[in-house]
């Protein structure tokens, strides 16, 4: 069965880019959210295999969304997507249970490598 992915990012551009990468790799993008507020419920509803989560978003940040998701599902595989220079936020996210992180601008290869590593582990 294809890997089921959820993409959380406030920028449509980033969402589409990530979606294309995943679709090309043969994954299924089962849900997208454009802010941290919608993400936890959407996660609950769709139960994806993996989430990519932007950090800085309106309404609720990616880290808060991550915390909520992990609180309900400690096994959740969440990969943060951050920009350069957000080291302390990334650190906070990793502490909160993010499995890995991707730094923008990213290469398709890096994204897939990271996803494969995380999914291959469990």
């Amino acid at each position, binding site marked *: 069965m294809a890997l089921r992915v959820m993409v959380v990012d406030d920028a449509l551009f980033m969402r589409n880019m990530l979606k294309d990468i995943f679709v090309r790799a043969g994954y299924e993008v089962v849900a997208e959210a454009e802010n941290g507020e919608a993400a936890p419920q959407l996660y609950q509803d769709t139960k994806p295999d993996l989430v990519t989560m932007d950090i800085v978003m309106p309404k609720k940040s990616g880290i808060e969304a991550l915390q909520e998701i992990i609180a309900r599902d400690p096994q959740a595989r969440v990969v943060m997507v951050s920009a350069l220079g*957000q*080291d302390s936020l990334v650190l906070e996210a990793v502490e909160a249970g993010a499995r890995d992180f991707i730094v923008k601008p990213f290469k398709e290869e*890096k994204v897939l490598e990271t996803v494969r590593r995380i999914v291959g582990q469990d």
Partner: protein
Amino acid sequence: MDMSKYRELFLSETREHINNLSQQVITLEQEPGNRETINALFREAHSIKGMAATMGYNNTAQLSHHLEDLLDEFRNSGDIPSATIDYLLEGIDLLDGLLDDLQADRQERSTEAFLAKQPLSVASRDGKSPERPVAVPDDKIREEPLEEPDTFQILIELEKGTPAAAARGMLILRELEKAGNLKTCKPEMAELREGSPCEQIQAWVSSFVDKAQIKETLLKISGVANVQFIGDRRKNDRRRRLAGGRTIRVRADLLDQFVNLTGELITHRNMLNRAGKNRNWDELNKALDSAGRLIDDLHHNVLQVRLMPLQSITGRLPRIVRDLSRNSGKQVALRLNGTDVGIDRVILEEITDPLIHLVRNAVDHGIEEEGVITVSAGREKGLILIEVADDGKGMDPQILRQKAVDRGLVSQAEAHSMSDRDVLMLVCKPGFSTAEEVTETSGRGVGMDVVKAAVNNLGGTLDIVSEVGAGTRFQMRLPLSVAIIKILLVSCAGHALAIPITRVQRTLDLQTSEIEVSGQHRVFRHDEEELCLYSLAEMLNLPQAATGETTWTILTEVRGRQIGLQVDGFLGQRDAFIKPTGFPLNLLTGLNGATVEGDGRVTFVIDPQSLLENTP
């Protein structure tokens, strides 16, 4: 009956038989129908069976019995079909694996799958069934193996400029925690939480997980540039344990010489006693003189006992080359020269994998379509020279330069200023060969960097000589012994330090006025060449003495380049018994061990090569 005391002997002898088996099968493949070889093969299998059954190693006994049956059949017909050769070789590999299990105190691996697929009519023969169990004595001497986790130190380097390095470091530590017990690490988790800088992580881990697997997992994490294992405490412990109960065979005439020498030493003790009592200095000196000679003889003889012929590890090479050439579709012949040269068994053990790697490399990268690989050994001054040479295309320094620049190992400018010889040595840098070149054969964990490190650890040197179109030679120069070596004693900031003589090309009394400063380095001319001069005191962070008219300098070689090493004076050279330093001193780079002086003081042995290679 307690059989455990025979275990070591069983292991060493069986290993020999297995080596012979594999060599003879290759011979047989080249001369099919050679009845004598078939007979010899049969005898080898028969011997293994007998010993294994006596020891109570069921699977080993059963497998060798099976091979014996198979060979017996061909002994009668005098011919072995070529398909069976592969089957035999597979069986020999399996035997080798079983022996590995026994050596490591593990349960013997299963032989069922192999026995089940026997290609021949053994089963159909009258009166004999291959399934017939081999009689095994009842009193099992094997105990359940006690599994212990491996404890090792791991060094993980991050790519330069990795974003959010502290977070990356935390993910890596988390991965290590998953693999086993993370004992200590630097930086620590708490420091990383605070966002401490993180370029590399050093950690002690104990784990049941295979090291290669841990390395593979870590390398998959983005931002991880390199993973190396530094020390392996348990491995050393185990080696020491094994060495304790190990048996070796010694020629009887050598033992006779020991008895003779000991007798003479006793006579000399009496002479010394008498001379001392009578205060007869002439006689005392004479007795001391000849006692010195006797001790030299004894030393020589003791070394002899530790020597084993290189053959004992080259036995596997014909088989390896055969398999490799078959898989790669190349025609490779292997020549072995001088393999009867004796080498200290510790050194022999350490260079087994490197030697195999060099041969693999030669098949993979040296030979193009067809060629000859020559492994030769011989004495060269006080050293042993082991050379792996191919007659392939050779290495082109120009191409290597470009490759090294592409891999980011050196800058364009550095690459251009390097001599061809230095450029060849770049293949020993970790990360030089990349995944796309790692073939099934040469990519198995050991890289050229590991080969070089192994040789250096033994106090030897690795050189590469290559000519485009004329092939490549990898030369390992190794000391005769690891325990007793010749050292040069030097003084340095008020300390006496020892440097292995194998590292000293010559000593120079430079006129301080000959030394010039060029850029950041001090340089001097020697044999028409400008060489860099380093200060040993500075490298060791010791106060530097004021320089007089003469600058005492050791000429040595680092990374294939001659350099001068300044010391405060030369104190002489002598044989020294080197003891390894214990933990944590053994973690210091550049410190090879220590020797105790006649007055009880400890002198440290410095290896300038590893000291300088690890200094930026």
